[in-house]
Structures are given as structure tokens and as C-alpha cells.
């Protein structure tokens, strides 16, 4: 039969699980070992923060928390490939991207600590807040990309989504509109193999998740998401295309969720221990460290020193979080509309009155 169309999806990897190069066409940025070291340090920082956050939750000082253990390479690749005025639309665990873009750990903790002020963060003001409704952030990124196109700004919108989220209607809609309107959208599927208890193969019959982009006429690429170099190369490629008006791309970052889904989850209920053990052999930090040490660009001493520095930094951030005062009760009203309508004004003063009465009682009782 005549052929209507053919497609090919490539797989990109530079560093294998053991930290040896599998190809010799290293991209320019990767020849700058200083930069690689810096990114490795940031990856390590994220991991240390992650562990600390879990500890906080376990001791009742934080609400439910979604760890990012194992995703560090993917996230730092995304963060470092983006420019400040590009827009990032995350789901809820892309801390590596966000720290690189200026979000403070204390803000992240505030968010998971049940305080809206965490989303008013120090990262770029045009970056989107954490997004809990799966997939919906991808359309925000597409809308941002459309705004850039309309205003003829050389900016790119990047969104991240999980393997589970790649099943969500919104994600496919975002890819489709990006293709239909030739938008500067870089969509990264962070395939960590699990959507809570549902394995990647239960999400779709597609051989790769990257091929979701074919339905939208987008460029597609599958990448070893545990390989910082490959992932960064993929992001550089996709962002450059998008910034120059060549349209969107769908990148599948193949990685693994080494942690529970969140602190409210117990992965042992549904996930074979052996699978996790094997995944640890492919995790992103070890291989990059090996590679950097093979170049004599990093030493165990530096590692130890850096870990201590991270510990101090994270502790300081945690204390800043713990010392944040409760938000005033009226703040629950103040951001519902730009201007409070009469109903809300009345409800607001009702609450304030009640609060004052209570504290009056308390102080009365005190005397």
C-alpha cells in the first residue's frame, strides 16, 4: 500500500548508568566541566532538601509532601536550559527546576505547610505556581506560548507532566494546540514509571510516551532522564527550536520515582522492592559524580564539604519556614477578588469580630 506518513523517535543518552560516555559528540556545554559541577552540586542540594522535607513531615512539622528523589537530573537540565524570562509551568514536585530559577526552599515548605504565601515565591513572577489538578498546567504553558507568539516575544514556555498525567485529556490538548498554532512550547513528560500505584504500562498502549507528540504533529524525543547531559542537550535543542519559531516539542524523560508518591503513600503496597533496588543503579547523581571524578573535576572531599554546606543552607531555610507566623485569618478573604464585594466584606468583619472576641476572652481569662 502507499504510505501516508512515517515517523521515527530517537533515544538520547550520553552518560550510561555507570557514568561512562556512550557517545563522543559531547555538546559544548558539557565540555565546560565547571558548569557540570555546578549542576551536580544543585542536584545534590535538591536531594538533601528532599530528605529534610520528608523528615519534617514525619515529625508533624509539614503537611503531605511530594518528594522528587530520582528526578534531579531531569529537573536541573530543565532549569539550567531555560532563560529567566521563559515561563515554567510545573506540576507539584519539580523543585530542582524551581530552586534553579530562584524559588526558595522556605517558600516551597510554606506551600506544603498549608500556607498560600508559599506560591507568592521569589522565582520569576511570571512562572506558574504548583499545580495539583494533573495536566492542567500544560494548557497554561500553551496559553503563555500563545501570548509570546502574539506579542512576538522570543520566549518559550516549558511544562512538565508525569507519565500518568500524559493520559490526561488536557495534556494531549496542550500538545495539539501547540502543533496547530506552532507555539513555542516545550512539553516534558517526566516518566518516573508510576502514577501513585498505577504503572506506566497501564496508562497507555503507546510504546514510548514521546510519541504522544506525533498525534499533534510535534517533534518528539525520548531521553535518559537520569542523564543530566542528555537531558540538558534535549532541552537546549527543544528550546532553541521553539524560540526560533520552529514550534513545539514533546520530550519524554525516562527516569524513576525512587520515593513513595507522597508522604501519604506507601509504595510497598504495590511496588516490588527489587524494581526499586534496580532503579537505584540507574539514579542520576551517582553516574554524574563518577563521570566528574573520572575527569578529576570533583573529589570526595568536595562532596563532603558541599553536603555540609547544603545541610546548613537547608536548615536555615527550614528555620525560616518554621518561624513564619500564621497568616492573619482575614487573609482568607483578601485575595478572592481584586476588590472585596459587600458579601465578603461582611463575612470578613464577622470573622475578625469573632477572633477579637476570642482573644478578649483569652486575655480576660489570663487575668
Amino acid at each position, binding site marked *: 500500500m502507499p504510505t501516508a506518513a512515517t515517523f521515527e523517535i530517537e533515544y538520547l543518552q550520553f552518560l550510561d548508568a555507570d557514568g561512562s560516555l556512550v557517545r563522543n559528540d559531547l555538546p559544548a556545554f558539557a565540555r565546560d566541566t565547571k558548569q557540570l559541577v555546578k549542576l551536580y552540586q544543585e542536584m545534590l542540594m535538591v536531594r538533601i532538601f528532599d530528605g529534610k522535607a520528608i523528615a519534617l513531615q514525619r515529625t508533624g512539622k509539614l503537611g503531605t509532601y511530594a518528594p522528587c528523589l530520582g528526578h534531579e537530573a531531569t529537573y536541573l537540565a530543565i532549569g539550567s536550559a531555560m532563560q529567566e524570562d521563559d515561563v515554567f509551568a510545573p506540576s507539584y514536585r519539580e523543585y530542582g527546576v524551581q530552586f534553579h530559577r530562584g524559588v526558595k526552599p522556605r517558600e516551597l515548605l510554606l506551600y506544603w505547610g498549608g500556607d498560600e504565601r508559599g506560591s507568592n515565591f521569589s522565582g520569576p513572577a511570571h512562572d506558574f505556581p504548583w499545580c495539583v489538578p494533573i495536566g492542567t498546567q500544560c494548557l497554561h504553558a500553551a496559553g*503563555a506560548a500563545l501570548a509570546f507568539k502574539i506579542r512576538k516575544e522570543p520566549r518559550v514556555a516549558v511544562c512538565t507532566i508525569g507519565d500518568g498525567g500524559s493520559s490526561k485529556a488536557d495534556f494531549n490538548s496542550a500538545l495539539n494546540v501547540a502543533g496547530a498554532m506552532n507555539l513555542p512550547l516545550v512539553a516534558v513528560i517526566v516518566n518516573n514509571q508510576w502514577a501513585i500505584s498505577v504503572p506506566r504500562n497501564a496508562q497507555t498502549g503507546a510504546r514510548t510516551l514521546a510519541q504522544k507528540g506525533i498525534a499533534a504533529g510535534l517533534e518528539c524525543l525520548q531521553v535518559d532522564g537520569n542523564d543530566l547531559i542528555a537531558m540538558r542537550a534535549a532541552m537546549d535543542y527543544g528550546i532553541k527550536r521553539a524560540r526560533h519559531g520552529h514550534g513545539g516539542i514533546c520530550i519524554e524523560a525516562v527516569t524513576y520515582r525512587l520515593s513513595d508518591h507522597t508522604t501519604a503513600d506507601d509504595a510497598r503496597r504495590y511496588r516490588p522492592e527489587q524494581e526499586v533496588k534496580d532503579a537505584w543503579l540507574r539514579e542520576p547523581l551517582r553516574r554524574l559524580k563518577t563521570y566528574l571524578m573520572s575527569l578529576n573535576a570533583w573529589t570526595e572531599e568536595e562532596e563532603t564539604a558541599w553536603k555540609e554546606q547544603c545541610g546548613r543552607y537547608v536548615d536555615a531555610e527550614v528555620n525560616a519556614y518554621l518561624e513564619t507566623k500564621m497568616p492573619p485569618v482575614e487573609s482568607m478573604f483578601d*485575595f478572592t477578588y481584586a476588590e472585596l464585594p459587600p458579601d465578603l466584606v461582611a463575612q470578613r468583619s464577622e470573622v475578625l469580630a469573632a477572633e477579637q472576641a476570642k482573644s478578649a476572652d483569652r486575655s480576660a481569662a489570663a487575668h
Partner: protein
Amino acid sequence: MAQITLIEAVTQALAWEMKHDPSVVVLGEDVGINGGVFRATIGLLEQFGADRVIDTPLDETTIAGITVGLAAQGMKPVAEAQFEGFIYGMLEQIICHAARFRNRTRGRMTIPAVWCAPWGGGIRAPEHHSEANEALFTNVPGLRVVLPSSPARAYGLLLAAIRDPDPVIFFEPKRIYRQYKEEVPDDGEALPLDVCFVLRDGSDVTLVTWGAQVKETLEAADALAAEGISAEVIDVATLKPLDFDTIHESVKKTGRCVIVHEAPRTAGFGAEISARLAEHAMYDLVAPVERVTGFDTHIPLFRLEMKYLPSVEKIVAASKRTLANS
């Protein structure tokens, strides 16, 4: 100055605001070269180009989601659902994001967007083209819900909706799109989004309604007048946030209230108005509040739809009951 219909007023408002604010864009299905299936956007493509009058792929989820993205990044999108009955695919984005971004980010990111849709029954259209589903939105904090009922109010309220810094649901009563023309100066004058409009003064009974039912309600007021009954007619116009004071003032005067809407009765927005009267006007009321509404069924296909919709007769009868009861 030209006399224009309600839908022409919608177009006039869009054109004015697009001319004066480059951040305003219109997007939806068939809003471009076709000018919208009701011609609400006719001429805009020619005037403002395809960058600002955007035919989207056929997916309401897409339209709603990119609208949030556009608004969050400094644009003022006016998104159209081709009919109110196709707005459901937009709800996750409207409820989870448009209505919440300001609150979620403590004001860092806001969504100054408008969602328009032709609304309501009575035009002999196919299924899903005749809903009155405003109650989907009136319990959602952070939204405004607006329903104009005249060319002038369509113009002024749509301008206000586009300029409002928060998301607005703007339902257009399609049954009266072309009911009559009136002079609507194209002067960019917006109307307030936080008041009800008293369309007719009266002393015996207060008739409260919105959207296309304003037509039947005013006709009912005439019929009542012919029988010596003086009815005050209020067009709520902005359902959320509700200007209850105007309604309350009127009921203080009349002691009676009939609420008219075409959505199903149970948990329709009329319930909120009736409830507030029960809570704040109990001692002003001399007769129980009446609701004249659609039944608690789906609006039938068009062979029976006029039997479903409130009628002048039903409004008159309900008004008389409030008088009989006292």
C-alpha cells in the same frame, strides 16, 4: 447614532475594547472568518487580524486552558463557548484555576479573562443549545457571573467584564439577541458589575429576574398594570456577586417577591435570592416568595420547550398569588 440589537452591542463592545486595549484577544470556535455562529464576532478578524481573533481547535478544554495561560501572562482573553451547553469542558480550568489564581498566589498572578456563551432556550435549537446553567458558577468563589438583558446593558456590562481584573462568566441570552434595537452610543462607557437594574418601578410586588426572562417579566408587569397591580421589575444582571440591597429595598416597599428564571427550580440561583429574603426580609414580606422557573427536568427539545419556559401567564398568576395571600 445607530440603533443596534443585543448581539450587535456585544460585537460593538468587543470592537471598542480591542481597539483601545491591545492586550484583548478573542478566541473560540468559528469566531474568525465566520464571525461566530451568531455573528457576535463579525468583522473582528478583518479589523484586528488572526493574532487577536483566534479560531481554536475544537476543544473547550483547550480554549479554557489557554485562556488561563494567556491571562496569566498579561493578555485579556475573551473566550467563547459556542453554546452554554458546551461549557462543561471548561469547568476544571475555570473553577480550579481562573477562579483561584489570585487567591492561590496571594495576588501575584491573576486571571482577567471573560468567558462568553450564548445562553438559554426558546430558539428551536437542537439538544444542548438551550441550557440555563448559571448555577454551575454561582457557588464558585472568585468568579463574577453576568447576564445582560438589553443592548445597552450588553455593551456596558461586557466592557466592564473585559476590564474587570477577575474572571467573569458572561452569558448572552440568545433568545433576545435580536428581540429589539436601541440606541447604544459607542463611547466605551462601562456599566457597574455590582448592581441590579430596576427596570420598572412598582409598589405592590417585586419581580426579580435575569436574561431572556426579562422580556416575559416586563410583559407580565404590563398585564398586571392593566389589572391595577403595580409591579416593580428588577434585572439582576450580575448574579455573582449579588447586589441584594437593591432587591431588599424593593421588597421592603412591596412586601412581595416573585423570582423568575428559566433554569430548573431546585438549587437554581433563584433559591439564593429567596433564601436571602427569608433571612433578611422576613419581617418585610407579607406573602411567601414565589419562584417561577423551569421545571426540575431537562429543557425538552423544541416541540415542547415553550411549555417548559416561564411564561407571562405563569408570572402573572404567581404575582396574583402573592397578593391573594395577604
